[in-house]
Every structure is written in C-alpha cells, then in structure tokens.
C-alpha cells in the first residue's frame, strides 16, 4: 500500500523513524482503518449530540401521521426519513438509536473484556491447574448456544437495557479469554518478565507492569470486534422481541417493528438495517485495521 511520503526520505535515513512515527504512517496508509475510525467517530458524535441533532423528540407520537414516507420517496422535509408506525420521526429515532447501540456495545464489551482478560491472563500466567480450569470454562461457554441462552435469560428477567447489557457482557468473554491467554503465554516467556520475577516483584505487579502493556494491543483489537458482536446480538435479540423494550429506539427493534409492513413500506426495514450494517462494518474495519497497524506481521 502506497503511504504518502511526508518526511524527507534522506532525513529519515539518518535519524530513523520512532515507533510512534511508524505507527502514524501505517495508520495514514490504511484506508479501512481510516474509514472505520471516521464512521465510528461520527456516530459517537451523533450519539452524544443527539438532543441537538434530532429534528424531533424521538418519543413523541402522532397517530394521525403514521408511516409517512421519507423525503426520497415523496415525503417532505418535515420528516426527512419519514415516521414509524406510531407517527414518530424516524430520523430522530435513528439518531437516538445510535446511543443505544453504542452504549450496549461499549458496556457489554467492557464487562466481557474484564471477565475474559482476567481469566485469560490468569490462565496464561499461572498455567497448570488454573489454565486447565479456564480452558474448560472456555469450552463450556463456547458450547452454549449464545442466542438461545440470551433469549431465555432475557425472557426470564424481562427485557431492559441493563439486562441486555448484562447478559451480553456475561456471554461474550470467550474470545477475550482465548486471545489473552495466548498472548500472555507468549509474553510470559520473555526475559523481562523473568527478570522482574527474579528481583522479587509481586505477581500482581508483574502482571500489571510487565504483561499487560505488552498484550494491550491485542486487547484493543478484541474489544472492537466484540463491541461489533454485541451490537449485532442486541439487534437480533430486539428483532426477536426479547431485547431492549419499546419505546427505546433500538435499531434492531426498529427493524422488527417495521417488519410488519415490510411488503408495503420496505423502507421501514431498509433504513435502520443499513445504518446498523454501516456501524458494525465500521467497527470491524477499525478492529481489523488496528490489528494490521499494531502487528503487521500477523496480518491474516
């Protein structure tokens, strides 16, 4: 990939690029990463500024203006993306929906990240029995059908934002554990870890200051990928009616509600689906991109 040449090659030859410079150069040259980063940033801004950006209150219904068509299908600018089955502004609901998706993605990834990292690092660092137990737990977790278990739990506890986030957070730690275990195993054998242990550093200290900094790159990549995973799963749960409950504007729920009129007003399904697709695509591209620039030799 042709990266734009910003520094004088001669100069670079003499001083040599710092790792930070190399990273910056790689980032600039990576279209997927830039696109993903750009879209995610944009959506984060939209989510934060939702009250300012949304043309209408996403919760206010007008039963006399149900399913008004979007502007590109002959509607008016009053409701640029039309209205839903209760006459609520579709664009405003999409904008607020970004909050729901990003929040669920971020918090679920955080919870599962903490669980998975703790297990993975422990397994990789201590090995032996700890490793055996963690590996076994990973196997158990992988064997449980995620969608089915999540649906059952949400059905039992009732669908709310907290429950959905909790369920996803408690179910999606497997990849963290697998990757963190492998990374820790790799790092653990290096000299500086042995050196730290030799000078009598405590175990938590070794893990925090010697192991963690060296596996954090991989961790960030998994965080992004699992965030995308959580967002997709939330949408699927909401679509099946056992996720976030109305009137919360969740994109999956919007697809589900629009599905009833799919044959007559397909845009009700099309619009939230496309937005969901773009967000997940962007997060994935960001994750893949981060992996490429932080560990180009591992590119797959």
């Amino acid at each position, binding site marked *: 990939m042709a990266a734009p040449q910003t520094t004088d090659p001669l100069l670079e030859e003499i001083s040599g690029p710092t790792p930070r410079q190399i990273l910056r150069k790689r980032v600039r040259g990576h279209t997927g990463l830039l696109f993903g980063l750009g879209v995610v940033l944009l959506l984060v801004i939209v989510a934060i500024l939702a009250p300012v950006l949304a043309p209408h209150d996403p919760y206010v219904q007008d039963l006399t203006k149900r399913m008004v068509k979007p502007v590109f*299908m002959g509607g008016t600018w009053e409701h640029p993306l039309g209205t839903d089955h209760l006459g609520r502004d579709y664009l405003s609901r999409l904008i607020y929906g970004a909050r729901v998706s990003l929040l669920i993605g971020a918090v679920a990834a955080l919870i599962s990240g903490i669980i998975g990292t703790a297990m993975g690092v422990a397994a990789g660092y201590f090995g032996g029995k700890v490793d055996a137990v963690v590996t076994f737990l990973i196997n158990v977790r992988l064997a449980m059908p995620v969608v089915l278990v999540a649906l059952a739990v949400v059905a039992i506890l009732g669908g709310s934002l907290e429950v959905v986030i909790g369920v996803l957070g408690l179910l999606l730690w497997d990849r963290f554990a697998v990757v963190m275990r492998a990374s820790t195993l790799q790092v653990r054998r290096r000299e500086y870890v042995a050196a730290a242990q030799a000078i009598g550093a405590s175990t938590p200290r070794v893990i925090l200051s010697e192991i963690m900094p060296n596996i954090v790159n991989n961790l960030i990549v998994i965080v992004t990928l699992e965030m995308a995973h959580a967002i997709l799963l939330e949408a699927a749960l909401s679509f099946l009616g056992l996720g976030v409950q109305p009137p919360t504007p969740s994109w999956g729920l919007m697809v589900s509600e629009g599905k009833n009129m799919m044959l007559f007003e397909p845009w009700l399904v099309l619009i939230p689906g496309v937005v969901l697709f773009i967000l997940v695509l962007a997060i994935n591209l960001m994750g893949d991109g981060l992996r490429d620039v932080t560990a180009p030799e591992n590119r797959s």
Partner: protein
Amino acid sequence: MKAVFLKSTAMALAMSVAATGAALADKANDTLSVAFTKELENVDSFFNSSREGVVMQRAVWDGLIYRDPITNEYTGNLATEWEWIDDKTLELKLREGVKFHNGADFTADDVVATVNFVAKEENGVKTQRNVNWMEKAEKIDDFTVRITTKDVFPAAIEFLSGPVSIYPADYYAEVGPSGMGLKPVGTGPYKVVEVVPGQHFVLEKYEGYHDSPKGQPTIQNIDIRTIPDVNTQLAELFSGTLDMIWQVPSDQAEKMAAMGDRFTVLNESTMRVGYLSMDAAGRSGMDPNPFTDVKVRRAVNHAIDRQALVDNLLKGKSQVVSTACFPSQFGCAQDVTSYEYDPEKAKALLAEAGYPDGFSTELYAYRDREYAEAVSSYLNAVGIQTDFKLLQYSALRELNMKGEVPLAFLTWGSFSVNDASAMVSQFFKHGSLDDAQDDQTKEFLDIADSSTDPDTRIENYRKALQRIADQAYWAPMFSYNTNYVMTKEVDYTPTADEVLRFTNMSWN
C-alpha cells in the same frame, strides 16, 4: 432508482402469482387453504385454549345444542330437545342415527362418558370454567341423558352450545387426549385426515354428516397450515397458495383492500376489550403507590386519546369503550362517568395528587406491543414515565395474581359470552386478579350475579360499573376487531364471535 424499486414492491406482489406458477390451493381441486397464526397445542378441544382450537372444534365436533351466531337462538344439534327437570338437572333427548367419523354410533353413552371425563378436575381440561359447572351425566336410555350441575347454572345451555363437544366414548377411552389430538374423531361436518402437531391440518368433508343446524359443508378439503408471520401469509395469499387469512392487522388489511379486485377484505367486531388495570388496592408494594390515589387514576383516564387509538390503530369496527365490559353485553350500562382526552387536566390532577413532575411506573403487557406502546406514549406525555415489560400471558397472569403489577395493559374476550357478568364480575369480586378490592363494587355485583330478575341485574350492574368508572379503577379503552382477507373465489360472511366456520364457506 431506489424509490422506484421500493414503490414497485406492491405491484410486484400482485404479479408474483404468475412467476410462482402452479398453486396448490384453489377452487379447481376443491381445496381451501387457510393459515393459522399460532401453533395449536392440541387439536383435542378440551386441551387447548386458543382461537384456532375453537375453529377446529366447530369443524370436527358437535355440541348437544347449537347457538345461531347471528340470531343467538338455541336449537338442537346432537340433542333434539332439552328440559330443566329441576334447578340443577337438565334432561336431553338425543338425535338418533348420528355416526362418528370412525363409524361408531352416537348414543347416550358417548355423552355420559364425555361429560364425566371432562367434569373431573384431575383430568386437567385446560379451561376449567368451560366444564367445571357440571357435576355428572347419567344415562336414562340409549337416547336420553341427564346432566347435573354443581350449582344453579342458567348459562348451561350457552356452554353446551359452545365449548362442550361430545366425543366417541370407546375411542376416547382408548386413546385419551393426546391420541385424540393426533387422530381426532368427532361427528362434525369435517373429519380430520392429517395432523402434524402445531403445523399442518387437513380436513375433509364428512359425507355422512347429520342434518345439523350448522348446515352441510360444501368445500371438499380444507388445508390448514401454521404460518406465524403475517407477511408470509400475505405473500402466500398473493402467490395463490393460500385462499384465506384472518386476524390480519388493520394496516395490512387496509393495503390489501386498496389493491383492487383480487381480494375481499371483511372486518368484524369482536367482544375483546382492551383496558389498563391499575393497582388501586396498593398490593404491588410500589412505594409511594400513586395508583391508590383516585386523582392519579383519573389522570391516567384523561391522558389517553381513545378515539385516536381507535381511528388510527385499531380501525375497522372497533369502538371506544368507557366501561368495564363490552357494550353489547347484557347489563353493560353506558351512561356512567367517562373521561374525555385532556392531557392538561391529567397533568393538573397529577399535580393535585402531589406528583407535579409525574412519576415512573412499570407498565406490563402481554400482547399488541404496538397498542401498548401508543398507550405508554400518552402516559409519558403527561409525565408518567413507563418501564415497559412485555411478558407471556401466563407469566403476567401469575404476577397479577400475586398482586405485583402496578399498571398493566390487558384485554379480555369474555369467552364471547354476551353478559356483563362475563367481564366485570370476573375481575371485581375480590379474586386474586382484582386490583381494586372494593367492597362496594363487590356488593353490587353479588346482587346482580345471583338475581334472576333482569331489572335488578341491570340496575346493580349499572351501580357497579358507575362505581368502577367514578373511582377510575380501570381505564377501559377500546374493543377489538378482526380482519378477514380472502381471494375473490371464496364466499364467506364472518361472524362477530371470531370463529372461522368452514361449513359456511363456499366457492364463488
């Protein structure tokens, strides 16, 4: 380009017939294809509690008595005449020469066996209310039986013409409810030739059907498939693999009606009423519990634009309901306190009650997410924030019985019984489902329910309903309707009791 693509979907729908080609179901091979939305748990009509089950029951079995769905008159079906020989004993003369689908003769033994089986609680009939009024049945001779009721039960005739069907004694004893569900045998106008549990049922005209007030069936085969998704049902209707669908949501029905001359769209009212139930008795442990304050309950009533719900969401033959019963029911007085839509007044009442900024509450519902959402939106608009919880009926009912539900969107179909007692007395007599627990209401209802004098009943139902409305224990909202969509080839006039009658269907 996209706009054109999307707009043309409806058009493409209409044209997809040609592309999908040969249709299985049509007039040519005398097979009518119908869709069920819900999976029927068991065809045995005593062991299911769904609409689909009632539809099958009316086709496959007969009751002793028949009620004309239009005139509401009772005529004999498997019985030819009947007489109360005392307060609790009904003597019936049975029709002779009737044969079950398996060739067995219908006699008093079948009536006795059926009644004695279903009346026993431990046999686990799903809807106990349909059968638990019967004590026993005894045979007088081959074509005379006596049915004894537990208490004085004037509605016996109604139940014998509704949910109580007569089963073949020997066969039922042999196969039991699950066997009956897989290979049903009755005396009805249609016999069952195939059952794939929950999914597919094939019925065939019963050539030996007796001279029943149900009339003789005309269509040879009925092919019923369970298709849970309305879109799929519509798509199949377009492609010609279905001839008829029912319970079609109003939006889709409207679009279908607008699509020209291929389909007939008919709308019929039902007895189902949608209402909000509030925890007036303060059982839910919500603290403070705003619903114990009549001002808050009145505010809720003022907050909802019932007319807008009926006009824009339910449509069809639905109507605004402001009392705790269905308007056509006997004793369902309409001249009681009603609450017009007035959000400002609602806010003022909330402020008066000490909630100037509103409050939040859980809102439970078990069906019609769309309606519940619209209702919750009206409540939000006056400051009542709702934490929406959609549960299965059984789960919500359990919570409700434990008194843990502060606010719920519920519906009640009164089992299609045209009497106010089937609704208001069901919920306001201090049972576990009574959220009001009001002594005065119960007093009025006790008089009304136990009296045989129509005027006394009317007067006391009115008093009870007035008390309920004045205290705003409920916020009654609207009645339901059902849309039937069929191809122009099918001739059928739906009835207001939401039961599909295959026997009354024919080809145009």
